[in-house]
């Protein structure tokens, strides 16, 4: 079984984000990490590989110096890693990014299962997995909290996916795209051996030409969305009105009056 995991490098979730007058976003001294949601996808890929055999390839579209996501995935246990980049890829939205990733998957050829995290914590578009599935014409299974059954020989998969009202149980043919969510597993920590392996590993850089992608379908030219302005949200002024009273009952009663006055209950 060949499983491919798509990952992205993002600023740490603890990072203090800021933006200057020119609209340049900064995450200060915070490290760049693998998108935390992608760790669930990597973990699930490793569990499935260990159960069914085969190999896990992790891929990421990003500049050559941005290898943290790939290194982390290799340190967790992925077998191969590929970075895809070309200067023309800058300013790609999900339309363009999904094109590059789909081209890469087609180049790899023998992919049985494609895993994504549910979204990336930087741009938070929730889009790339579904977009790639549609480009490849394979089933799209998003927000999966459990892979109930996987039959590599029969080429079928059954998952439980989250919807607002509960869990939908869906069966699909392979290859398929699965978007994982928290709760599907507990991602492992990287081991010392894993980190050493990741440090020694070669990370091949594939260009647009390598995957057969056309330059006018990537970057701003291949994108639908522009984001001309980034700004910090207004800060809420003031602190909570602390309700103090002789007894808990009294405080509760005062609070209920306040909430009635706010018309929220």
């Amino acid at each position: 079984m060949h499983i491919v995991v798509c990952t992205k490098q993002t600023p740490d979730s603890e990072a203090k984000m800021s933006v200057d007058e020119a609209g340049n976003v900064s995450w200060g001294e915070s490290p760049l990490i693998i998108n935390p949601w992608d760790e669930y996808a990597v973990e699930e890929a490793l569990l499935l590989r260990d159960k069914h055999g085969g190999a896990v390839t992790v891929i990421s579209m990003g500049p050559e110096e941005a290898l943290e996501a790939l290194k982390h995935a290799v340190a967790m246990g992925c077998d191969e890693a590929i970075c895809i980049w070309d200067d023309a890829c800058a300013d790609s939205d999900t339309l363009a990014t999904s094109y590059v990733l789909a081209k890469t998957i087609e180049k790899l050829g023998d992919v049985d299962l494609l895993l994504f995290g549910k979204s990336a914590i930087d741009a938070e578009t929730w889009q790339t997995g579904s977009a790639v599935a549609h480009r490849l014409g394979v089933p799209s299974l998003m927000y999966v909290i459990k892979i109930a059954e996987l039959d590599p020989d029969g080429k079928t998969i059954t998952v439980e996916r989250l919807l607002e009202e509960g869990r939908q149980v869906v069966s699909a043919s392979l290859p398929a795209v699965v978007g994982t969510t928290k709760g599907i597993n507990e991602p492992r920590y990287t081991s010392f051996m894993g980190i050493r392996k990741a440090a020694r590993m070669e990370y091949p850089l594939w260009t647009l030409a390598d995957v057969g992608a056309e330059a006018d379908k990537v970057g701003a030219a291949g994108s639908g969305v522009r984001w001309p302005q980034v700004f910090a949200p207004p800060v809420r002024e003031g602190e909570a009105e602390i309700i103090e009273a002789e007894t808990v009952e009294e405080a509760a009663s005062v609070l209920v009056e306040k909430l009635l006055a706010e018309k929220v209950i």
Partner: protein
Amino acid sequence: MSNDIFVWVEQFKGQPAAASWEAVGTARHLADTMGGHVTACVFGGQGVEALAQEAISYGADAVLLAEDATLADFRVEPQVALLAKAVREAGPTAVLIGATFRGRELGPALAVELDTGCIADCTALEFEDGQLVATRPIYAGKLLSKCTIPERRPRIFTTRVRAFPKPEPDSARSGEVVRVEPVLAEGDILSQVAGFQETEGGVSLADASIIVSGGRGVGGPEGFEPVRELAKTLGGALGASRAAVDAGWIPYEHQVGQTGKTVSPDLYVAAGISGAIQHQAGMRTSKVIVAINKDPEAPIFKLAHYGIVGDLFKVVPALTAALKEKLG
């Protein structure tokens, strides 16, 4: 190119998603500004016809209605195929979709199908200088981004749940309902829905107008009882912090925060939640926030509008009792 707007209407077993009516209301407002019509797309199983009139009452001028077994349970492929066909025929300038689980999957697939852009999870949408300008949070709401789709059409937007007001329905409104047929036959669809397990408790976190959440302070699974009781009394949904979920006290479906759900209720009650930045990212846009915590220094008090410093096991039951008394 018209100034018309399409809205995809989501339903589960014939029950509409509030997010869809929020999207219809937003589309109505934009169409009035731009001079266009609003078409609601209701694609479901037998019996969704009732939603057509409802969509019109919320502001649609016309409805495209498909009733077919292939559309009954949500699967992205048959929905995209039909929606894309309808869009190609009518040429609307924009398509609005509620940013639910289903909508977040549908939007990007539709964008690929139509080779256009999709702006996800918009919290504001305005018509400025001939452009539709969307505002959306990035980096867990630490920053905001203004986005446009300047060249490609249609422009696709998913609207964040509860970020836009749900319009008042007007049953006097009328509009045309046009029946359409699905594009894909069952044999063309690569996935099959085998079952559904509904979440206990009924009220979904994402579109709840009241949420009561418990955190580390509840101390264990049984500690959620008073929190659950308060939620029930308020007719609200039950939420939880990451600490409570990671401890295994409550399932992940209840988690609010950066690694859980983003919610925006009218009232958010945080009981025994310190208010880490990641939790705040998921609930900071709530209209009124109440914090109950025994630590007066807890960061949640910086974000909350009202606070009671005290033991949640005393304060929460007292609040439930006071509400029962006031609300009858």
